[in-house]
């Protein structure tokens, strides 16, 4: 790893396409995105939005509004039924399956249901995100330790995830997302199991990462957090963007 910006190694090391240079200030862009589920109606309805590079955005709205669906589409784990999606200058819709892993390495995702390996230790869960990228052991250990201390879980490093409390598990999920030092962080309800104090700390952590250049998108129900941090908030209702 060389260069002055080691934290965001370029996508597979390819040079950016010159034609997309101008669009670089936009990180995430959705054009008329629709998502319908067979028999379940429409989860997203004509969603058009833009998130600038280095921006910090909240997504909010009632339960079932489509927040998770929106984040999943940005992550490429769910394909939109219609519309276009451009992440960091690449058209996501047309990416071949074999390129998906390399894109996912640039995005840290905090899943609403954590998606941790319950019979593995906290360290192993966080380290997994670096291992799949081939980071060497020395650097890996340093970075995992740092990420765990961010979320106040250094003392739990060698515990199996299944022995942790709900809030501790959520923080492991957060640590796994930030340890990658990704270009984008997508966090789905990252404070649902945290007490008010830890919730604030978590958003502070995201802000810190954001200050270093990472684009952050947080889906949350917690109006208190949104008010307190006075960031842009996109409000969804029944799959439509009603404000933001």
């Amino acid at each position, binding site marked *: 790893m060389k260069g002055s910006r080691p934290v965001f*190694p370029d996508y597979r090391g390819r040079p950016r396409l010159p034609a997309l240079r101008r669009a670089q200030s936009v990180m995430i862009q959705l054009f008329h995105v629709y998502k319908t589920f067979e028999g379940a109606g429409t989860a997203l309805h004509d969603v058009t939005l833009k998130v600038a590079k280095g921006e910090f955005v909240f997504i909010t709205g009632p339960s079932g509004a489509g927040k998770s669906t929106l984040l999943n589409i940005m992550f490429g784990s769910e394909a939109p039924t219609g519309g276009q999606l451009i992440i960091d200058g690449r058209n996501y819709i047309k990416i071949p399956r074999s390129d998906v*892993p390399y894109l996912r390495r640039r995005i840290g995702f905090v899943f609403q249901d954590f998606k941790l*390996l319950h019979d593995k230790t906290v360290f192993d869960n966080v380290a997994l995100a670096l291992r799949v990228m081939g980071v060497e052991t020395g650097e890996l250990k340093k970075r995992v330790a740092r990420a765990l201390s961010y979320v106040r879980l250094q003392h739990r490093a060698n515990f199996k995830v299944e022995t942790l409390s709900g809030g501790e598990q959520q923080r492991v999920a957060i640590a796994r997302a930030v340890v990658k030092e990704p270009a984008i962080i997508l966090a789905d309800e990252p404070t649902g199991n945290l007490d008010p104090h830890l919730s604030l700390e978590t958003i502070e952590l995201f802000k810190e990462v954001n200050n270093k250049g990472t684009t952050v998108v947080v889906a949350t129900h917690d109006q208190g957090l949104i008010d307190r941090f006075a960031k842009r908030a996109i409000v969804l209702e029944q799959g439509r963007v009603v404000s933001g």
Partner: protein
Amino acid sequence: MSKGSNIVHLLGSATGSVRDNLATTVVTALTVGFSLAILAQFLFVFINLDAAVSTWGDRTHIVVYIKDTAMRGPGSIERIKGASLAVPGIKSVAYISKDDAYAELKAGMKGHEAVLAGVDAGALPASIELRLDPEYMEGAKAAGVVERFKKMDWAEEVQYSQEWVEKFAAFLRFFEVAAFGAGIFLVGVTVFIVSNTVRLTVYARQDEIEIMSLVGATDNYIKLPFFVEGVLQGLIGGLLAVFIIYAGRWALLSRMPVYLRFVVDVPVSWTMAVAAVFAFGIVLGAAGSLLSTSRFLKSC
């Protein structure tokens, strides 16, 4: 992010995974081992019996009794032998003189020697015994050969147990088809059981596969631990199979009548057999895991 350290990490993660899933690894390995042992022992018995059957096949022969008149004159026996060997389908020729025939008869009459009291050695005809090439043992072809010998001027009578050869050829053909069918069936069952076991193992770890894929692991990275595990299971299974075969062979040989021992003997060299069982085990394990993970990843 060099390629080399990448591979080290991959392998590290794979062996780690094996450690974590020791119980299922062992269980699958045992399944592979048992299946392989049955398969291998079947093959050994098959190969041995096949060899034995070929040997017995060698023992069928045509007997041509020679006219006493044709034996006069020096070199007449050599001429007869030469003429016989020239007939297509004849593998070997043995000459049985009048004295040999008498000795043979006497030996066959053990206990009834009194009967032979008035019989003179000269009373029996000399003969030649002909062995056929295997492909000439079949009914029509063998009959053709017999006809040719009947026309020889020195032949007094031709004996050929047509019925026995036909039976024997039918048995050979049947045995080959049956053993081949059973072999295919056994290989199929082994592959099925192993791939099924591996499939269930993969199924039990689908969360792990999904999460690895979500944090940006490539398909190959995900497959590798399963592959290593499959190979390891195959290896352990192969080892177990070799052990079972060896133990079974020992148990059999120590009790088996000598003349039956050939059935459990390893037909090729011991090293070759071990290597083959190993190789098949590894291929089974590796193929099973690759197939199962690929199928699973595609549905991700």
